[in-house]
């Protein structure tokens, strides 16, 4: 569990680590890419959970994740189109995607209640890590006001998801 948790945090800590060291702030096109990628990752994890989860509350939670993250990402796409910004791939996005793929493979091996618990634990840790990155790096670095505002809405949504995941996880025990 701790290993999985640290993977998500390690990826996001790249934001404060070498990838963006020397005072380099992520640019708006990079921020848009990171935020979108973070959503795509959670949708992929949720789709796996819809297939694999045994508990109906866990399945319902996964469906909520797909619905909300698709809605946020649709808004993000509409915004970058409007602003004529092309999201720019970067080391943080790449590391996030790589570690998420490893995580999916790891979770794929689990079954039943063991899977349900691991999926929720990862959801809590992942949303916590994303929220930390949004609060300390992405929101303060965003220069466009509309992008900043969308990230702030995203933060509220993801904080809600974190609490929701914690509640569903607590009921499993």
């Amino acid at each position, binding site marked *: 569990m701790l290993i999985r948790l640290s993977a998500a945090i390690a990826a996001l800590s790249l934001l404060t680590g070498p990838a963006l060291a020397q005072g380099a702030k992520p640019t708006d096109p990079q921020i848009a890419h990171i935020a979108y990628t973070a959503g795509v990752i959670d949708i992929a994890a949720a789709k796996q959970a819809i297939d694999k989860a045994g508990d109906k509350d866990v399945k319902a939670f996964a469906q*909520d994740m797909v*619905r*909300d993250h698709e*809605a946020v990402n*649709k*808004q993000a796409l509409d915004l970058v189109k409007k602003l004529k910004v092309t999201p720019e791939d970067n080391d943080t996005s790449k590391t996030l995607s790589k570690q998420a793929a490893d995580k999916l493979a790891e979770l794929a091996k689990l079954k039943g209640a063991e899977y349900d618990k691991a999926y929720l634990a990862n959801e809590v840790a992942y949303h916590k890590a994303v929220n930390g990155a949004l609060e300390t790096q992405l929101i303060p670095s965003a220069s466009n006001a509309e992008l900043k505002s969308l990230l*702030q*809405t995203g933060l*509220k*949504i993801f*904080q*809600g*998801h974190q*609490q*929701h995941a914690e*509640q569903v996880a607590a009921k499993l025990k």
Partner: protein
Amino acid sequence: MRPGRYLPVMAALLFGMIAVPAHAATIQITTTDLVFAPAEVSAKVGDTIEWINKDVFAHTATARNGDFDVNMPPKKTVTSVLTKAGTVEYYCRYHPNMKAMLTIAP
């Protein structure tokens, strides 16, 4: 079909139609960017709440004490009638960080 038999029913319906709206109010509560507004509302039993969801996300207005659970689809308005008095804290099941208060007088 003797009309006389239906008179008491008709009278009750008419009375009901006239009597109820005279007291009941319609109150709007909106969700914008994951915030219920107003955060505190006072109402009476029989009042109608118009739940206006301005977000692109689905929300719920779920009473902590189980008195009501209203689904609020994205960009839609739904209504519910208050049937029970009390001071009710409610939240969104999908985003439990969304919380507000409804005080319902008898």
